[in-house]
């Protein structure tokens, strides 16, 4: 029973991460920009959040710590996502290349910043890339000793908000129009580049929050040399599986969350230990599942029609 509780907790943690980041990817792609750089955005968001968690006083009320952490992650994620916006929207750069560079840049930049801070504060003796936040992290938990945190509540709110924003508001419909047929959107007076910036910035904010949720999952210190282990890309798989629709993305994230959680808690289940699968198999599982899922779902893709294509006014 205890094991099942643990599995549920980790599933929800990882599902939250994947939902947030996949929703971020969804907003960006709905506006027409492929965001391969989510991994880097996550790392930068995690950096912003971890800096707050590591330096804020644990005596403050939990909700204040929570809000400041989320705010910092969002701001870091959004600022970093501007790199994609500028390259893809203003300079019509190859979006895959810009995104890949952002992944490398995010990891290197976060490592350099954290190490530089550690070196400066320790006078050169500590050159690790770690930030510890044991006390402040506990404040974010809903119940001590579990993994249920305020982030999960936030995730549920964001899913609902994402659905309403995308389908029920003028902004959302215009955003989607820019991803489907930017020429048509532009011809009725919608600024494609503004909408695409909005999409990229929202993906930066959500990716940033996803980053802080990921690095605070189950551990009380973050090592920025490791990064986020391909979660940005798993989230893209979740997004495709969820067919770029917020509610389906949430369900897809739950499925992937279960498999990722099994990597953490498989040893507690009798029927799983009886299978005698080596640990690496569990580690590979989320990636293998997503490959299989992609193989079956990509053929009839519901991807936004104009994603990845720089908008050129003269093609109208």
């Amino acid at each position, binding site marked *: 029973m205890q094991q099942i509780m643990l599995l549920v907790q980790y599933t929800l943690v990882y599902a939250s991460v994947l939902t947030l980041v996949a929703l971020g990817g969804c907003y960006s792609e709905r506006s027409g920009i492929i965001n391969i750089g989510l991994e880097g955005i996550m790392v930068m968001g995690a950096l912003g959040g971890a800096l707050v968690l590591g330096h804020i006083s644990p005596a403050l009320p939990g909700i204040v710590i929570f809000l400041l952490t989320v705010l910092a992650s969002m701001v870091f994620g959004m600022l970093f996502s501007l790199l994609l916006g500028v390259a893809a929207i203003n300079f019509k750069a190859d979006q895959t290349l810009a995104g890949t560079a952002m992944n490398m840049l995010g990891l290197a930049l976060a*490592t350099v910043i954290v190490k530089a801070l550690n070196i400066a504060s320790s006078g050169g003796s500590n050159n690790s890339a770690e930030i510890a936040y044991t006390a402040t992290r506990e404040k974010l938990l809903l119940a001590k000793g579990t993994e249920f945190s305020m982030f999960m509540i936030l995730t549920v709110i964001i899913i609902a908000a994402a659905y309403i924003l995308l389908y029920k508001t003028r902004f959302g419909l215009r955003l989607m129009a820019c991803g489907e047929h930017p020429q048509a959107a532009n011809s009725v007076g919608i600024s494609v580049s503004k909408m695409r910036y909005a999409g990229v910035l929202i993906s930066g904010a959500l990716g940033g929050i996803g980053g802080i949720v990921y690095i605070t999952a189950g551990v009380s210190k973050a090592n920025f040399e490791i990064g986020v282990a391909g979660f940005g890309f798993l989230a893209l798989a979740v997004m495709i599986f969820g067919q770029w629709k917020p509610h389906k993305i949430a369900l897809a994230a739950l499925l992937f969350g279960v498999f990722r959680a099994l990597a953490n808690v498989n040893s507690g289940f009798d029927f799983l230990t009886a299978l005698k699968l080596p640990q690496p198999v569990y580690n*590979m599982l989320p990636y293998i599942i997503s*490959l299989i899922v992609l193989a079956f779902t990509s053929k009839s893709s519901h991807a936004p029609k104009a994603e990845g294509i720089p908008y050129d006014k003269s093609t109208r």
Partner: protein
Amino acid sequence: MESNKTKRTNLFKRLLAMPGFRSFISALACILIGLLIGYIVLLIINPEQAGNGISTILKNFMTRNSEKLRMKSFGNTLVKTAPLILCSLSILFAYKAGLFNIGAAGQYVLGAGASLYCALALNMPWYVCLLAAVLAGALLGAISGAFKAYLNVNEVISCIMLNWISLYAVNSVLKDLCPIGYKDTFTLASRNPSAILPKLGLDGLFGNTSVTIAIPIAIIIAVYIWVILAKTKFGYEIKATGYNRNAAKYCGMREKQNIILTMVIAGALAGLASALLFLSDFSQWDINQSSIPAMGFNGIAASFLGGLHPIGAIFSSYFIQHITDGGASLDTRFYPVQIADLISAIIIYLCGFVLFIKLKMLKASGSIPQKRPDMSADIKPASENKKGGER
């Protein structure tokens, strides 16, 4: 009669009209801006040491004390340049067909696993290990290629998934091939010296036992890839597929087969890359590593910096490895060694703007061609012609 000034501007315009010159200038611009930002970062972290820091990065082995040490250290950089050249060839080859082979990292990992397993567990000679690595990489490339061609799966995402799967697989396969209590695999010298690549006297030249035929192999293959791309029908088909997949199909090229074949070759190149490094017995595989080796990703930097030209890749690979090694010798009391990674990442990011810079230069040269520019010059693969909804 023309005045001197107009002659000079004419020369400049003629130079700008040359694709090679444009690539060179834009690569130079990326490097300079990248280094400048790197220098600013050094200044922010520790202003007093910044001058020292940037010169350490740029000088790399030249900071060593004696001629002998400099040669040895130069040799070390070359040993790591060889695999980087192959990784960047892998990426540029796929890119010519409009495919982004971010899976070079995973193909590299699987190649390392295959070659080390053949060397340490099966006691095979070096050429068998080399072949095993090539096949392993090719297999992984084939998977991504087939997924792309037949199932419409975006190669970037399938490649990333395969990267992680390969890492975990290789870590567990090589687990039993380490000395007890160590996390690195056995050295080839201690277990199976026949698996070490032949040296042909190069080790004596550099005073460095790790310098093998890996470096000449890498250069020969770069030239060979250039010949394939520039002079053969297959190379032409690859570029045509990259330029416009549908047009290639209409012309009767088997575009699906070409996609898979391209990925197979790209994978084989990345697999060979790791064999060149690990069969030089320069470094061992760390079975506890939890992140994918940077070599494959640095290959992206090298291929774009080299203007997506196989010969350019040789020089850009050396440059990237040079500053990476230089960064590794930074004084860790003052600076994190990842500054070099930061600089390479900035350079890759700036490479995204290269097309824009090149277009500006082309305009400045006043020779905007009426028809679309020659494919072999400034190739802009599929993304622009990409069919909507492709995944």
